[in-house]
């Protein structure tokens, strides 16, 4: 069983007669070579399969001699790193209100997905090792400080981030199998030990209640480590250089002044 990454070279297969060292001759040249049910070559101990230009799928290479058949499955796979970024359409941050009191701030969400086509390729070596995280949307969440896969239930329910659906702005990067494996190893390691979540380097929310300015949130971190940062880092592990998610954003939203600095889906979304 072989995997071939995109744009890889041809694969040569050799069939060996046994027990004799000679192929039988009964009026036709043996062995007869097939790809799935299509005869591709008559005679010759070797057949070369070229995956270039072929759709991502499983191809069964068969060498037939009389009633004897030997087959091997070749997986031609497409490997992709996909990033989905959802940012509030009117700006970088939106607010959930309880009456006119802000109770939660949403900076949007960024998630990533390591995609493999065909889907059943994840059940065989070497992708089998990462089957649990491949073809799933992966995102780092604020409240639970965990790495969530699509379909998983969050506890506690996120208020800062949307669930990991591939919504918003989607960008796909075609990557090699080697880079997909590197990205999968990175993602698996990150899921096992997510570390601390840090929304941004600076976040200040104030409300002007005449004549005073009431501070709702005011904190600093040395760096961000949030959904946008980690989605970009996963892209980096896959060998892709994504735009910077770092930026600042200042505005009034519903009478609340927001000043934010750090990695954020809005910057990423605008620059993708």
């Amino acid at each position: 069983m072989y995997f071939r990454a995109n744009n890889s070279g041809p694969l040569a297969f050799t069939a060996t007669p046994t027990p004799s060292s000679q192929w039988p001759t009964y009026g036709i040249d043996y062995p007869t070579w097939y790809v799935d049910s299509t005869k591709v070559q008559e005679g010759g101990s070797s057949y070369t399969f070229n995956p270039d230009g072929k759709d991502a799928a499983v191809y069964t290479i068969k060498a037939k001699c009389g009633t004897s058949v030997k087959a091997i499955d070749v997986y031609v796979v497409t490997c992709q790193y996909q990033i989905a970024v959802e940012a509030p359409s009117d700006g970088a941050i939106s607010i959930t209100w309880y009456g006119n009191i802000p109770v939660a701030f949403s900076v949007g969400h960024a998630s990533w997905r390591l995609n493999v086509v065909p889907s059943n390729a994840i059940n065989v070596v070497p992708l089998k090792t990462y089957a649990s995280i491949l073809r799933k949307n992966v995102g780092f969440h604020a409240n639970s400080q965990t790495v969530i896969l699509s379909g998983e239930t969050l506890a506690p329910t996120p208020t800062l981030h949307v669930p990991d659906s591939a919504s918003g702005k989607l960008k796909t990067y075609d990557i090699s199998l080697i880079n997909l494996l590197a990205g999968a190893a990175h993602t698996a390691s990150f899921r096992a030990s997510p570390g601390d979540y840090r929304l941004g380097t600076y976040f200040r929310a104030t409300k002007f209640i005449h004549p005073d300015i009431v501070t709702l949130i005011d904190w600093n971190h040395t760096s961000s480590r949030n959904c946008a940062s980690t989605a970009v880092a996963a892209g980096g592990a896959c060998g892709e250089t994504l735009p910077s998610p770092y930026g600042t954003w200042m505005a009034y939203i519903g009478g609340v002044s927001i000043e934010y600095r750090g990695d954020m889906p809005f910057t990423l979304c605008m620059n993708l």
Partner: protein
Amino acid sequence: MSFRSLLLIIGLYFLSFNTFSNDIKEMLFSSTIIYKPVIEMALSNNTEPLNRQQPTKIAPFEIRMVITRFSPSGEDKNQFDSFMQISFKEINNVKFQVFKKNNLVQQLHVVRTESGSTSITKYERNLNSLLSKIPKTNEAYIAQTQEIIASLLKQEDFLTDLPLGEYVLTFELELLTGVFIGDVYISDYPYYFRFCFANNYINIALSDKKTKALIFAVTFGKHILLANLFDKRMSNGFECYFYSNQGLKYLTNLKEGEQMNVTTWNVNGTDEKKIPFEEWLKIMNKGNK
């Protein structure tokens, strides 16, 4: 400055300017142009390679800005009513000639001298072009949108409202690949200016030095997304959101500290509604997840 840095700078400013056929470029906000040489200087002095994730923090530095009068040509004298020149003492090969009319910058000429030759890049503000995508169904709506945008542009032109003289500008910059962030403190000026110039969006704001209250902010990408403007007492002003055709979507006013009802329009600028502020917050919540 590396070739890469130059490309980034060029990429940064494509947002604001489209070239007219007569070599006058379109300008929306003026500060992005006036601060450009300062960012270029910071980039050329920076020895660290820029990163996409971690910002390179530039140690705070001062630039002396000089605002003087200049004598326009006869034609310009008739077309505009106020003229001034802005230059930086530390950047002696660039100066800005500002042409104002009705208290709004109408044209900005960047005069650059290099190797003994002088080139002039002209920028012009064209509100009609900015508002051209709004359906012509409601003249009052278009006029109100124009009035709001003009007030935002006027506030953003604050550098050109400073009295003639010399000012010390203190820049605190963070530079990344494709993103330039800065805080600018101006001597004898009660507000500080903040900006984030990214490849495809710009966010700029003015805040009170003492109270840190945000009195003005604009976010724009291909068009102005949202903006707000308040007076220095934080008692009067507005918060507004725009459709992608640049027409007003929501407008909520603050009058003498009291939050007024919110005015909403559909994308055609019709179906005007007044809704209580609290109701509007519920509408805003619908987009929240």
